């Protein structure tokens, strides 16, 4: 059974997605239980695959029985096993959370929504699991297309934001495909392991350099790395609540995964250090991304838009960890992929719950929210503490490794940027927490709503299907912190190339 897990991870959500419209055609309310059931399968299989990798090392799966360079191979190693579990877990929680939001925003379209959700998860898992460069492109397009459809259904500006996303996202995917073409032209192979064996002799070929440049640019577009982030804030802000909850934490992280794969598995690390100075360029782009993301986030009053700019800064963190090219830096980057996915997911869950309850997303709407939604706000405080890097929440540990990495690399500007960014996050979140917990009753600070000075604030918590994922995510954020040592020892240290 365990031999078939790699196929099961992809085939289960794919078949589920094909069957969802048929089920929803007649029994619309069955779509959600069906999607939850289907999503539990890849979570179980991914967990099993990760355990298998930890026990006995990476393993492959030849689809259709064709040997790798000729057929397509699925390959699960420590990094992809970790990503699979992350995607499956967040996908399942997002599907649990989606019910109230879908019945509010997307009434009557539940079958389509759950189909696209399953396809999105299929695409993201496929990118992570496959060992074939062209197969990555196909799955990238599956996840992108389902993302376009889901996002365009949002609020007022959504179709326009989606169209921009389609144009820029297609440039990104096409650049990736072009990179595949150049590598294919130079080597004749599409399999990552096969290419990794052939490429070192060709490092000075101009085709390889051009191919690498297109890979990096394409993936940076998908990742939203500054200055290629222009599509991201609009798309994720205008998307419907359940959709941004699903896509925002995962899409950027999976793109970061592709970048790590290309830089460390497909190419040897010294290619990005000595042959082309990609590492240095990426590092400084990351610095700019962190600074610009932080400043733009400070300027926002809409919290959902603020979170999208924080995401841009967080992408900068991951890229910075990759760019310093040493063991603590890359460990921090991989750990931050996991932690940041959980934190951004938590933030979007909370924003979704708050909007569902009819509260606005502007910061002044948070006044006294702790009395109306005590559990949600408690979870918000936990996520905020993690974002600022306060132990024992998980954000502290990945930032610790990232800063260690920059110190080992003697890149002092990078270290200072990281520290300052944590301060910016602290300012960002404490002004909201202050509004929610410490502002006087009755809205005196802003002077609106003066008529009801004595208004009794009733508790009006989000429905259970939203509250449970929020609390689970908050718990995960706290648990991941003390566990990060174990995660690094069992998984991440094997994902870092031995040369470091």
């Amino acid at each position, binding site marked *: 059974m365990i031999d078939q897990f790699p196929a099961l991870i992809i085939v289960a959500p794919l078949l589920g997605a094909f069957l969802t419209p048929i089920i929803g055609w007649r029994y619309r309310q069955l779509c959600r239980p069906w999607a939850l059931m289907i999503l539990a399968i890849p979570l179980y299989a991914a967990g099993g695959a990760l355990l298998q990798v930890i026990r006995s090392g990476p393993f492959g799966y030849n689809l259709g029985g064709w040997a790798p360079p000729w057929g397509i191979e699925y390959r699960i190693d420590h990094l992809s096993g970790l990503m699979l579990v992350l995607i499956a877990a967040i996908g399942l929680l997002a599907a649990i959370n989606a019910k109230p939001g879908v019945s509010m925003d997307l009434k009557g379209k539940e079958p389509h929504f759950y189909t696209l959700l399953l396809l999105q998860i299929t695409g993201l898992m496929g990118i992570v699991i496959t060992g074939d460069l062209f197969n990555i492109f196909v799955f990238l397009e599956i996840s992108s297309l389902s993302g376009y459809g889901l996002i*365009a259904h949002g609020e007022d500006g959504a179709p326009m934001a989606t169209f921009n996303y389609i144009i820029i996202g297609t440039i990104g995917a096409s650049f990736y495909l072009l990179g595949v073409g150049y590598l294919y032209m130079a080597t004749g192979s599409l399999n990552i392991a096969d290419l990794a064996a052939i490429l070192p002799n060709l490092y000075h070929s101009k085709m390889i350099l051009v191919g690498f440049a297109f890979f990096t640019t394409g993936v940076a577009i998908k990742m939203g790395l500054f200055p290629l982030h222009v599509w991201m804030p609009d798309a994720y802000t205008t998307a419907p609540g359940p959709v941004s909850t699903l896509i925002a934490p995962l899409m950027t992280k999976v793109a970061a995964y592709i970048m790590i794969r290309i830089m460390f598995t497909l190419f040897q690390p010294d290619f990005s250090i000595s042959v082309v100075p990609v590492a240095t360029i990426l590092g400084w782009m990351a610095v700019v991304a962190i600074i610009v993301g932080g400043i733009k986030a400070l300027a926002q009053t809409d919290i959902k838009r603020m979170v999208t700019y924080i995401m841009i800064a967080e992408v900068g963190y991951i890229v910075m960890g990759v760019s310093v090219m040493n063991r603590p830096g890359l460990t921090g980057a991989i750990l931050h992929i996991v932690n940041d996915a959980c934190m951004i997911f938590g933030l979007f869950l909370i924003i979704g719950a708050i909007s569902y309850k009819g509260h606005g997303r502007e910061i002044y709407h948070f006044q006294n929210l702790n009395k109306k939604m005590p559990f949600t706000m408690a979870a918000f405080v936990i996520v905020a503490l993690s974002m600022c890097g306060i132990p024992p929440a998980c954000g502290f540990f990945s930032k610790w490794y990232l800063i260690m990495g920059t110190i080992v690399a003697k890149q002092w500007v990078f270290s200072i940027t990281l520290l300052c960014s944590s301060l910016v996050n602290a300012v960002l979140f404490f002004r909201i927490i202050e509004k929610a917990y410490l502002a006087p009753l009755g809205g005196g600070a802003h002077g609106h709503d003066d008529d009801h000075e004595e208004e009794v604030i009733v508790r009006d918590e989000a429905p259970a299907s939203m509250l449970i994922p929020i609390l689970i995510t908050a718990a995960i954020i706290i648990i991941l912190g003390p566990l990060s040592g174990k995660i690094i020892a069992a998984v991440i240290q094997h994902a870092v190339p031995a040369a470091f």
Partner: protein
Amino acid sequence: MKNWFKLISWVAVIMTGALLIYGIHDMPAWGDPDSPANAHVSPRYILEATEKTATPNIVSAVLADYRGYDTLGETTVIFTAAISCLFLLRRRGGKK
């Protein structure tokens, strides 16, 4: 604002073009039967495919058998696009 925008696109286009032309230089001669792309993986398809898949058309054999999961992904892409269009263009169901 408008000119600024055009300027950025020109810069991006020229940079991309320069990179592409830079890459042309090292490419194997066009149509070379011994170029790496024609010599590494694909000969085995030509030699084996007819025998192993019983299909004279090698493109079909590779499409549907050797790289069949790419084609599964391709059909899924079409399905995704169809569902996306339905999701976007159908009027909200239930209440007409």
